[in-house]
């Protein structure tokens, strides 16, 4: 059996790529290059780094869930182990470095791959629930072991290192956030391109085939188990790269990097973005990181909003946020996107009013229940200040929410009609 250990950058690029395929990548590269010029604060850079790491991890996760149909509850293991090993490599080299920092993710990838190979040996024999439950069990085992095996994992304090200990890379020692950002961004591009190209190789296509119909694939000469195993290894490899990037950015690895909460949140990120699309996890990672780091600065109950958003996504847009965007491709192609502008504009105000007023009601309730006595005054949306214990703001909030919900229900048929109009023609017989 062969394993994806070649540098993903060079995979298949020998062939000339048509411009329309390369264009999104060029745009992405330019955008990644320009972003720190606009967002130059340390916090913005850190958040963008965090986003990039989550993107790599989510893309790796989607190689399993979206492309291979394998639902894992323990994928943090491979990212975490990749990170832990990278950190040990970093510390091991710190006295006498002979490699520059930017090659560290290769080690992370290699160790992620190694563990995916070992664990995949028994976990990929079955798909479905059995796979999911083994991943849960292994995830829990590794997370618990990380507390017990102190000498390697450092207990709950984790292990840390200093990224500037490696050899300088063209004069950069990666002490500054901006330098780390460019390192992360380049690896993001490499990893994302690698995973994209991988999905277009025979193995990538077969992962889809096994996901859709494992029995059929068997009768075409392919062992479903091997296809899953190889996908699993590839996913472990890229997750390991994400782990090494984490090690470089945060210079610390802890049990948190291995536990079920991390595994669960990457599922959330990927599904939120949309598992059926290559860029789904990217959108999911961006949205989720912003929610986690920015929304939590403004409200204590941010996790409640994330929970509501997630459940609403599963219920109403099972193809994720990307799926929602993708719905508009057809009207766009038909040149009928204009049909939607008016109903959207009509819906915009009630939608906004509904979201803001519902959130306001929740905030008022929360403030009234949990804020200190005498601390009745609360401010929402930066300028609205009132007494959270008086019934009036609550009633106003509820009324606005009710009215806007009613308006939305009333406007819904109009939108539907516009949709039918906008998607009509072109899609014959469907």
């Amino acid at each position: 059996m062969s394993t994806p250990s070649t540098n993903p950058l060079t995979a298949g690029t020998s062939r000339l790529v048509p411009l329309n395929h390369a264009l999104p990548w060029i745009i992405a590269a330019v955008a990644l290059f320009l972003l720190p010029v606009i967002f130059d604060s340390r916090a913005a850079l850190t958040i963008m780094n965090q986003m990039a790491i989550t993107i790599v991890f989510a893309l790796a996760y989607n190689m399993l869930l979206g492309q291979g149909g394998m639902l894992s509850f323990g994928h943090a293991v491979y990212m975490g182990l990749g990170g832990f090993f990278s950190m040990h490599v970093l510390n091991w080299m710190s006295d006498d470095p002979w490699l520059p920092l930017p090659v560290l993710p290769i080690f992370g990838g290699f160790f992620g791959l190694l563990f995916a190979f070992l664990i995949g040996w028994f976990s990929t024999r079955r798909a479905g629930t059995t796979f999911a439950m083994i991943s849960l069990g292994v995830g829990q085992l590794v997370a618990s072991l990380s507390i017990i095996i102190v000498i390697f994992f450092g207990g709950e304090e984790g292990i840390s290192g200093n990224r500037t200990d490696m050899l300088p890379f063209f004069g950069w020692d990666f002490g500054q956030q901006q330098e780390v950002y460019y390192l992360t961004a380049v690896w993001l591009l490499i990893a994302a391109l690698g995973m994209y190209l991988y999905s277009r190789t025979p193995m990538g296509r077969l992962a889809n085939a096994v996901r859709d119909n494992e029995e059929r694939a068997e009768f075409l000469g392919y062992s479903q188990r091997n296809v899953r195993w190889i996908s699993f290894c590839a996913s472990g490899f890229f997750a390991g790269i994400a782990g090494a990037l984490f090690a470089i950015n945060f210079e610390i690895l802890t049990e948190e990097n291995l536990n079920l909460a991390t595994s669960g949140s990457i599922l959330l990120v990927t599904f939120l973005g949309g598992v059926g699309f290559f860029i789904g996890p990217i959108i999911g990672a961006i949205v989720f990181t912003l929610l986690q780091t920015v929304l939590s600065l403004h409200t204590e109950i941010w996790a409640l909003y994330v929970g509501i958003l997630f459940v609403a996504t599963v219920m109403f847009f099972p193809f994720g946020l990307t799926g929602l965007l993708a719905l508009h491709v057809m009207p766009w192609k038909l040149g009928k996107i204009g049909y939607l502008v008016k109903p959207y504009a009509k819906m915009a105000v009630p939608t906004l009013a509904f979201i803001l007023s519902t959130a306001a009601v929740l905030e008022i309730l929360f403030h009234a229940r949990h804020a200190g006595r005498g601390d009745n005054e609360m401010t929402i949306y930066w300028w609205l200040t009132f007494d959270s214990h008086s019934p009036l703001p609550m009633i106003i909030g509820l009324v606005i929410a009710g009215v806007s919900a009613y308006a939305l229900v009333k406007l819904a048929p109009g939108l539907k009609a516009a949709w039918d109009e906008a998607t009509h023609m072109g899609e014959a017989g469907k």
Partner: protein
Amino acid sequence: MKSLKKFALGMAVAGLAATAAAAETVKIAYIDPLSGPFAATGTNGLHQYQFAADTLVNERGGVLDGQMFEIVAFDNKISPKESLIQLQVAIDQGIRYVVQGNSSGVANALTDAIAKHNDRNPDDRVLFLNYSAVDPALTNDKCNFWHFRFDAHADMKMDALTDVIAENEDIKKIYVIGQDYSFGKAVASAAVRMLTAKRPDIEIVGNELHPIGNVQDFTPYARKVVSSGADAMITGNWGSDMLGLGKAVIENGFSGPIYTYYAAADGITAAFGETGVGSLKLVAEGGNNPPSKPEAQEYVRAFKEKHPDGNISQSRITNVVQMLAMAIDDAGTATDVVQVANALEGMEFTDSLWSDNPMVMRPDDHQLIQEVHIYGHVPVEAPFDFDNSGYGLKYENSIVNAGADLPTTCEMERP
């Protein structure tokens, strides 16, 4: 372009990364859990900081020429990763002082990151005022110039605790049990080491670790404690592990003293209620309940007036705030943290609220040396009780300058 940049920045970090710190306030970043399972402790700590800053500094005219303290809260969700992100956000806002206390894991991550940051960015250095993370390593092997600890660390507390146990002739057998992680192990090894030295006749009938946060039913452990015939038990447990273990042990017939670090407040006092009376002991710094000084009583009343559900459970918070204010005044600057750190180093401080014994910030390792008490869980009148339960903590023993003779392995590197 400039305005676009500002706008975009504002969008990205939504208004927080914006304008540099206004000159008239000294901002202090409070990086602790405000959501998730430990949010109760974090939120209560935040309230104590805000109240201390308002009452003890701002209402008295602030520091320097009237600069006010402002506590800026950052939710780290008790995750090291999130803490480091929030640290960057805080530094961007021009904040030069970071306080954190919940979880030694987070403290380790922060002290490491701050040391690296100060090394790499000499223009905007940061001080780390650790008010609660008690891993001894933080002021020993892992000490650095930027870190100051205001709580007695685990070994110092154990030193005080074993002093008291050594005097109790009734105790012949002791059971040591704790959570399976560095703090639990530190408590266990310190207990064994110090008991052997101080009372070689005491038999350690049990010394074990249980998985942290993962035990649903402590009954089997309680059975072992009871059947070992122990006269007393020592545990460093906190949170639901403390509650679960304590309740199970008492319910299954254990009647000896249970020496703890964290068996109070945040719902634990209320949940123990009457069951804990006579059994639960706790080692901590701070004041008696009710405090002896009228101004301290007034302070607690005023706090409870504002936060009826809160507790003054970490009285060291007032020390942090007051000592920082003193150090800034001494240094004559709030922006040059090296000078402020130099002023803090070796500072002698006499608390106006809880205690009359002066405390000193030991220069060798930046560890505050102070009086430590053994408290008992007893009925306490409102508002000096915890969790409004009618129960609280009262002095049983006091140890002046606890742990001052414990050596430190710290090799401080000064800038």
